[in-house]
């Protein structure tokens, strides 16, 4: 009679669970660091404020010229006050399920969506700094994923 006896299942299950836990931690680290990479990359998409475009009136009010030589050059947004660019940062990191982690990165100024997506005054495509940032972060994010998940699997 042929017979197959199998043992060692408990250890196997433990090993699998341990691997899963390590992978989950790696996933958390990946989305956290990945969010920062996207943020940095989005900040790199901005064009410096043109010299001479900032003026101060006699009353002390600050103006930024946006016409003529100071006009915006698509698709890169031009820094005026720098508020939107400075506000780009990692917004959250959360676990959205077992082994599933999510992070969000973006600016906090109210008018940022107009810049990114356009408006009735800004034709589409507008100044998609986040999209470009994400696109340009592609390689770095891939490298990060490879590194972290490889480490987790070692």
């Amino acid at each position, binding site marked *: *009679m042929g017979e197959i006896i199998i043992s060692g299942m408990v250890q196997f299950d433990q090993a699998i669970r341990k691997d899963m836990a390590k992978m989950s931690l790696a996933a958390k680290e990946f989305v956290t660091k990945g969010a920062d990479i996207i943020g940095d990359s989005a900040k790199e998409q901005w064009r410096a404020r043109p010299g001479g475009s900032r003026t101060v009136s006699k009353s002390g009010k600050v103006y930024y010229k946006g016409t003529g030589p100071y006009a915006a050059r698509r698709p890169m947004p031009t820094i005026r006050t720098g508020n939107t660019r400075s506000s780009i940062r990692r917004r959250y990191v959360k676990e959205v399920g077992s082994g599933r982690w999510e992070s969000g990165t973006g600016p906090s100024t109210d008018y940022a969506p107009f810049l990114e997506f356009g408006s009735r005054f800004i034709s589409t495509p507008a100044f998609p700094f986040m999209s470009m940032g994400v696109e340009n972060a592609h390689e770095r994010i891939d490298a*990060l994923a490879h590194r972290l998940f490889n480490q987790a699997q070692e």
Partner: protein
Amino acid sequence: MGLLNPVIATLLADTKEYMAKMNEADEKMHKFGKTAEESGGKFHKFANTASNAVIGVGAAITGYAIDQALKFNEVLDNIQNQSGASAEEVDRLKTSIINVSNETAISSDKIGNAFLQVEKAGMRGASAYKLVDVAAKTAVITGGDVVSTTQTLIGIQRLQIARGMSVAQVGDLMVNANKMHVGSLESLTGVLTGKVGGALAATGMNLAEIASISGVASAAGYGTAKSYVALATGLQKIESPTASSAKQLKALGLNADVLAQTARKPGTGLVDVLKMLEVQSRRTGIPMNTLIKDTFGAASVGMVQTLANNINKVSDANKKLQQSSGADLSIKFGLTSQQLNFKLKQLETQSHNALTGFGLLLLPDVTAVANFAEGAVKYFQKHPLVQKIASDATLTLFGASLAFKVAQAIGKIPGLGTLLGKIPGLGSLFKSTDTALLTEIAANTAATATEGAIADAELAKTGVAGGLAGFAKTFGEGALNFISDWAGPAAIVGLGVKNLVDMVKTGKPMTIYDPFSGQTTNGQPVSGPQLPNNATIAALGGVVDVQQVSPSTGKNFGPSLQVLGKQLDALNTLGYEGKLTRAQFNQALLNFSKQDQQRNYSLKVRITG
């Protein structure tokens, strides 16, 4: 404002996704992209990125290796096509390129391009290797580009401004000159070679003299070719005086012939002339500016005046540069190579080169690899249970993406194009597959998949050759004695799976245990532990059926033997096909069990009669 969707880039990592099949990943990707679109985000690219990152869990080792190997092959082809180097020479260069790359942490394709320049210049063998080696070390120390440094070294040799100096000495001189030179390395190499270097070389200046002048002149802001050419023209005027210029110099109290003789002295000509003018100026009270204008010409007054004002610096720099040596270059490279950044870069480069070597191994074996990839896909199609585990899902991914990559690459590999037609069923492999996705995945193949795939690829190849060595290579050297833990190899030898397989094949009556029902095939229950649940079985690699195949219909029939574990499956297949002897089979089991232990869990299979 509140109605607007916020601009948020979302990054998702799903480790379950990693465990899922390629199709599931595909659906996920599209679903994610759609969601992003609906929410007003314009992040399709990002969706791809996130999914790629998820799919790309692990490392794109094999895809990368093939990429690297293709690039490397391209460089080698360029060398052969453009320089006229023989196939043997190119073959030798493979090793040289990797060696230099490993030592200097410069990528192999850059080193290959440096070799291309050298070979195009007609240099071969040891001299070519030496020049590229020095150029690479010089580039590492100076932070320059190895190809342009190589071109500079070739140019210096052609201009013959470094006569009597070894290539290593010239390299060291370039390193020293770069320290003195204010400006980019490119501007320095522009002075040492090309139009400027040629003009200065024509006046008899040697490399050290030119570099010392460049050091002082660049610090004063003279970086244009025009100013150096004006200096060269002025020197030529002194070295070849005309009757009228001699008369003019005589009026200043200078002897044109003596001045010409001094100027022609290699290594120190310019410095000596300037010293003579300075002495004359002090002696006669004639301003240096006037003396320079009448000797060198009006065009070079500014630069020569600067050199005259810094005559000691030029002289010291010249002396220091003349003392450059090959040993110093080695010492400087040694110091650089101890720096942490270099070591990290070197580690990275060496890893790349190792992968390039691996990729090169894969490339010529396109047929075998493609067969493997196709075989792997078919195998997983036949074993639904196996598809549930991550490594095998990614292995499927690997098989498809690798085959896709190979198919893409074939056209680029000279001489292999005809192989395309010889790969059975390669085209049909992609009939129902999204090639765009395969392209993405090909660049993001998971490491675990690669590991498994390589093992199986090796197995496929070495199995055909029918050898224990190949199997041992696949499953790890050395022995582990899990069998001896309880019954010893005798238990296997006593009956052996092959024997069981033979029994199945020949239809000999026997009782087979059905792990799913917990009963034997003759309907009699057997005692012993029950198999774990389906998920665990799947994680272990599924259950393999070994069954007799009808020679007439090609279909399985008769009783079947079921063995757990995908590697055992591979083992069984080899045994079934008669490619392993019983002894080899048992040894492979021992090796397999060692690998088992390395995975931190134990899978013990006992087969008794």
